[in-house]
């Protein structure tokens, strides 16, 4: 049984269908990347998994339990944490309060202090800035808070939507190194990225999404060498 198993889902915004008959699997311990151009439906896919944008048909199972009809708070309770595109921090709250809200769910709430210590160890910058208002952080720091806030929820599966979006190359490296560390500590990661080279090079597997459909899937190292991907996403 896969950790996450999506079978044939369709997702629409009103009359406009965005995801078509999509299936995808994530095994425990894997890092899986979803790549694709603007408007391919990557964010919509994550929103469908986290319950923000329910699929109109098909099934999504986590730990073998169907979750496609569950509201976001139940999906969080089951162990899926979605770090949304654009960070979406609680802008007028301090860094620490943002992190604490991340541990709102019952399972995580039991050992907040312990988790906070681990998050600070992984992202020491956040401890230095813990009393700063989130709005006033730099883009890179904000992304770190968003990831830290996600970890505070004690994810079994961490979903990251374009963590490198809008960051300088040196910070992008930092972010991907952080993701690698998170994965090495045993958290399964499903990541949406447009920085195809970096994301595939730290992933085990990848899916390529175009116009709401999976057009290619496979081992990350095979995808990197694929001529179509080279041409369409790596600009080689």
């Amino acid at each position, binding site marked *: 049984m896969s950790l996450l198993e999506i079978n044939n889902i369709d997702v629409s915004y009103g009359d406009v269908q965005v995801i078509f008959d999509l299936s995808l699997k994530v095994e425990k311990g894997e890092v899986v990347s979803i790549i694709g151009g603007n408007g391919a439906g990557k964010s919509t896919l994550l929103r469908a998994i986290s319950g*923000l944008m329910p699929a109109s048909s098909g099934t999504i199972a986590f730990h073998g339990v169907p979750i496609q009809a569950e509201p976001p708070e139940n999906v969080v309770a089951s162990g899926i944490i979605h*770090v949304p595109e654009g960070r979406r921090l*609680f802008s*007028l709250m301090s860094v620490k309060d943002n992190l*604490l*809200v991340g541990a*709102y769910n019952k399972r995580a709430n039991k050992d907040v202090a312990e988790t906070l210590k681990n998050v600070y160890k992984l992202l020491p910058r956040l401890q230095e800035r813990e009393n700063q208002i989130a709005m006033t952080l730099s883009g890179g720091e904000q992304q770190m808070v968003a990831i830290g806030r996600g970890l505070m929820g004690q994810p079994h599966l961490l979903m990251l939507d374009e963590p490198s979006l809008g960051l300088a190359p040196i910070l992008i490296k930092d972010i991907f190194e952080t993701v690698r560390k998170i994965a090495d500590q045993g958290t399964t990661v499903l990541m949406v990225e447009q920085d195809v080279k970096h994301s595939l090079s730290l992933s085990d597997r990848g899916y390529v999404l175009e116009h709401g459909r999976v057009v290619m899937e496979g081992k990350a190292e095979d995808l990197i060498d694929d001529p179509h991907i080279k041409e369409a996403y790596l600009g080689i």
Partner: protein
Amino acid sequence: MYYIIEDTINGILMGSIYGLTAMGLTIIFGVLKVVNFAHGSMLMVGMYLAYWAVTLSGMHPYLAIVLVAPAMFLFGYTLQNFVIKPIFIAEKNVREPLTVIIVTTGIWYILDNLTLLIFGPQYRSLADNPLNGQMLEIGEMFISVPKLYGCITAVITALGVYWFFQKTDMGRAIRATSMDREAASLMGINQYKIYNVAFGIGAATAGIAAVTLVPFYNVFPTVGVLFDIKGFIIVVLGGLGSIGGALAGGIIIGIIESVGPQFMTATWTEAIVYGLFLVVLFVKPSGLFGQKHDW
């Protein structure tokens, strides 16, 4: 000169009670992003509760807080859960659903008329309560004791609510929801439950305000309307969603109302209040006291 100091002090005292009556309005707006037109009516319900609790038991009027505040919390929580929430769910994709405002207006009419039906139009007052007419004499100045109590209660309530929002998990979840509902739901926060709690807290603060009013203010079915209008002005002055701003806005109005008549007729002081309200709306719509939400 003494008159002006005396009036200023009494204005500040009464103004902080105004601020307390408006606090729930600003809390509910801050979280649900809708104006609760039933707020004055909730205050009125709180006043009847306090009035009957004190009249029937003979307890000290301030002791009624332990009864009225929790009862009003439950009342607000239930009202939001069973009457307002279904509208929110039906209008899920609308950011500031107008229908919710219409529903709160309906609740206002129903509560006021139900009260009229049950208790009649007459004015009731706690004539022989220990605070009635009490004055504190400082030199040549007279300070109203029930208003002084009210002011202290308003400050304690504001601090308490502020502490709750800053330091508890539920408080942080409420603030998070007020800033970004969707992001909050990704933290496992059920936004509708948060709305229930915020509405409950708003109603509870109205209940506390009611307790501070009954020792010196008449109770009647439409008493809430007076405070509704002041409340809207106060929360705009102080900044929608701001707890400290509600107190400050209330105090500004209290001072204008109390010092103004030394220099002009009462209709003019009202004109000044509305004028100030309009100026703030045009010049600084986020209110005199800064940020959109300071909690």
